[in-house]
């Protein structure tokens, strides 16, 4: 039970990338499922509050970084009476293998859930090298 509670808790991070962020907001690690199908690896991340315009995915070398920007919740003439979650930005980075076809990575956002499909690359075909006699 105790473990379960721990699991549910939101993790806060200062960003797994070792740089200081320019935006002065809290950053959370989105909870992510990763599964493998026959021809792709699919990454599903819960990022409530983001849409397709506020998510950024970058691939640099072997690191796939997901960043989501959430505008703070404020309501005019209202004060907070009860509070269980704090909204903030999202950031998480994954190391991906060389087996992924980088050109064909696809991503979509629906109802606060980000889905990234990383297709597997065609296996490198064995090449026969003929040796010329000379």
């Amino acid at each position, binding site marked *: 039970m105790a473990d379960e509670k721990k699991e549910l808790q939101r993790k806060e991070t200062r960003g797994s990338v070792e740089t200081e962020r320019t935006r*002065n907001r809290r950053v959370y690690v989105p*909870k*992510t499922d990763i599964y493998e199908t*026959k021809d792709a690896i699919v990454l599903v991340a819960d990022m*409530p509050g*983001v849409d397709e315009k506020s998510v950024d995915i970058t691939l640099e070398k072997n690191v796939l970084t997901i960043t989501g920007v959430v505008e703070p*919740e404020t309501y005019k003439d209202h004060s*907070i009476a009860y509070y269980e*979650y704090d909204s903030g930005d999202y950031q998480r980075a994954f190391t991906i293998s060389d087996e992924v076809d980088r050109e064909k990575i696809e991503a979509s956002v629906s109802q606060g859930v980000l889905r990234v499909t990383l297709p597997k690359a065609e296996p490198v075909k064995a090449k026969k090298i003929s040796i010329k006699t000379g």
Partner: protein
Amino acid sequence: MFGPRFWRFWRMIDLGAEMQRLQSEMNRLFSGYIPAHGHEFPAINVWVGKADAIVTAELPGIDPKKIDISVVADTLTLSGSREKDVLKEGETYHRQERSYGSYTRTLQIPFEVDVSKVDAKYEKGVLRITLPRSEEVKPKKISIKSE
């Protein structure tokens, strides 16, 4: 309370915004509203204004038709379930962190709600329910009869 975030702000250039955030965090702390992170699903925030209360809940990836909202007098009940992605044969999970299952949350609003005017919106995985104050809950004067 004086975690790394507190000390870190000295290094920030953007002091104004940080101070403001710190102040609002302090206000929250001292007003007794300490976040009860993660003990219940979904996490809920409640905002109260003169005319209404706004309840927000983080419910990413749910079909809005399957969110059940009911209001009785001053009690709001939110229920539904979050379906697990069904994997086909040969597909395997590498990592599974998102939670699934059914949920029910019951919440008492500080006043009686005009049930007919309750409005709910679901956007970007965040549910927002506006609960207007009922006209009938104005203070009533009770006269004492003498015999």
